[in-house]
């Protein structure tokens, strides 16, 4: 009995010595997020998990973040909201009140960002999100939400500009949009752009999110003889749209989509049928975008693909930008105090692999969209703020003439 006691006492002593004897570790700075890892938006949601972790690992590799005169490491606390907005909101509350994370990263999708930012505002803790572009998120006068996705209302900006410069010039346009926050924002912003460019809106149709049957709409498009079709929707809908367009022999002179085209999965699923489709991206892996931690965007894309097995698109780059923004802000503020970091984020202006990171008054970044097109199953940038980059393949031939 006494021998056991001695052993036990010894162990206790050792433990105590170890606990007090070891050098004090600086506490990690924890960034919390609730992201769609399962559920219907998971195929894009996981880009954010990978991007956040990749950025945090890279920053830590290069020494971490300088807070005052100490170097501290970043850590990620991630929850899966199962593509359920309600759960996402509750998880953000948990991150703030139970896990006591230092700062917040955002979810994917505008409707999530819209709901979750109410939590960051309620608890006054800054959230930098790269998944929600809807103007609604930033028009409520909230001070603690920042976004690295370009405004939804301007998604078709460069595309419409390009339309006016194509030959033969399109005149009748069909505008289709899903009924969620992001796509409604896109449509609302696109209408005045089309009017200003002198294009006629021959069809303006809102459709149910997650619709799988576009035959009726496609038949109407064919009947109205439109030249250009602009679709603001989700990847799954756009996939169906293109396939059904083929099976109904509907081939307008051009069509452009807000999502899908930049994603390699999407192009692979369609194969040759993806050709001629236009899209847009605020980010391309160009070596001209220099970055403090990753070198440049092209190097980042290579390293990302090597680690995760797929090419990063603007969602991933946006996720990385969020982490970098927080890191820069902490260094600028010299602390992790919520108010100080929030003010530092608002004043940021630095170059990164995502472009220049600077937030407007309302908390949203402003980046120009580059028009891209799928040509021979490859992604080609065709038009940006400076005009044509490559020649677009226009007009689109009939399906049986490809």
């Amino acid at each position: 009995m006494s021998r056991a006691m001695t052993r036990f006492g010894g162990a206790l002593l050792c433990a105590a010595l170890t606990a007090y004897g070891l050098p004090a570790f600086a506490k990690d700075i924890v960034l919390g997020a609730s992201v769609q890892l399962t559920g219907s938006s998971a195929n894009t949601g996981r880009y954010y998990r990978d991007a956040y972790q990749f950025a945090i690992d890279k920053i830590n590799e290069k020494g971490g973040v300088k807070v005052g005169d100490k170097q501290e490491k970043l850590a990620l606390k991630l929850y899966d909201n199962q593509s359920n907005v309600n759960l996402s909101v509750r998880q953000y509350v948990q991150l703030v009140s139970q896990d006591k994370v230092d700062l917040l990263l955002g979810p994917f999708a505008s409707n999530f960002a819209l709901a979750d930012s109410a939590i960051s505002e309620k608890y006054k803790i800054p959230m930098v999100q790269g998944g929600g572009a809807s103007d609604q998120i930033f028009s409520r006068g909230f001070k603690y939400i920042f976004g690295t996705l370009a405004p939804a209302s301007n998604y078709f900006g460069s595309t419409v500009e390009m339309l006016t410069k194509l030959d033969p010039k399109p005149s009748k346009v069909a505008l289709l949009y899903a009924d969620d926050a992001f796509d409604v924002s896109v449509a609302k912003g696109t209408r005045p752009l089309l009017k200003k460019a002198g294009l006629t809106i021959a069809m303006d149709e809102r459709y149910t999110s997650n619709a799988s049957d576009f035959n009726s709409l496609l038949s109407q498009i064919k009947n109205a003889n439109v030249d250009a079709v602009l679709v603001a929707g989700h990847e799954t809908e756009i996939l169906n749209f293109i396939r059904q367009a083929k099976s109904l022999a509907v081939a307008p002179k051009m069509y452009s989509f807000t999502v899908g085209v930049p994603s390699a999965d999407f192009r692979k699923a369609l194969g040759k049928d993806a050709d001629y489709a236009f899209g847009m991206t605020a980010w391309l892996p160009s070596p001209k975008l220099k970055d403090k931690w990753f070198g440049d965007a092209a190097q980042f894309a290579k390293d990302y693909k090597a680690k995760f097995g797929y090419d990063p698109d603007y969602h991933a780059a946006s996720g990385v930008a969020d982490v970098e923004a927080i890191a820069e802000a902490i260094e600028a503020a010299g602390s992790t105090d919520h108010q100080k970091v929030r003010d530092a984020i608002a004043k940021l202006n630095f170059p990164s692999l995502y472009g220049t990171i600077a937030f407007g008054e309302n908390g949203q970044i402003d980046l120009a969209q580059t028009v891209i097109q799928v040509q021979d199953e490859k992604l080609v940038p065709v038009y940006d703020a400076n005009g044509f980059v490559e020649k677009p393949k226009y007009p689109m031939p009939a399906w049986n003439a490809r």
Partner: protein
Amino acid sequence: MDLLAQILVNGVLLGGLYAVMALGLALVWGVLNIVNLAHGAFIMLGAYLSWHLFTYLGIDPFLGLPITAIVMFGVGYGVQRGLLNLVVRAPMFNTLLITFGLEVVLTYLAQLAFSADFRTINPSYAGAHVAFGPVVIPLARLMAFGIAIVLTVGMWIFLLRTKLGRAIRATAQNLVAARLYGVEPRHLYAMTFGIGIGLAGAAGGLYGTVSQINPYIGATLTAKSFAIAIIGGLDNPLGVLVGGLVLGIIESLTVAYVGATFGDVASFGVLVLVLIVRPSGILGKTA
């Protein structure tokens, strides 16, 4: 006029696809009185099976339908024999709950197994079409329509004319008498459910050729199948064809002429109306 013709044709073809989807549900419900809320999840599994056969073994989705159907039949037999048979004599409500739970489980398992990424079944003729004047008919949908007719008529003949079909109906109507005649109800129920799920699997294979598939399409498909089964009436297998056509045409017309966001209002509105006014459905016998 051209547009109207095209819209109507779209509706009819959609109706055919809908009919195949709802056939398995109507069979199991009408004959066994089992309301399967997991029906859509089985369609989804059938679609994935078809996709795997196409992608890894190069088997054409239409030619591979029998394989998909047979495998799903096995799955259905197992589910009924191992799980649903345990609650058959409980209040009907229990079957609703248990199949709901099953739907949740199947969706999650599918997501774990196949990831949330969407898949497409893209045989070379997937975009082909046939033109009748100004009306364009997608080939895949036309074939699905043809299969719908074959399966529905086949089911009708099976249930009303063959010995096995009559045994199934008899067992469902009178368990005791069936047992007295040496029929093993557990096996028969499992057979029937298996056929229902086999049909769901086939529907999945067809669905995959016209639309993308992901683990979450189950719930919507179940809801649609319900509407079709009830609108058409559960007493007669041909009712599913009627229900599918009615729903397909109404949806097509509504989306084109009322607004693309009103499709669901129309479908489920008609369902509610049918339930209130004539619950036995269009082809059902009024009690």
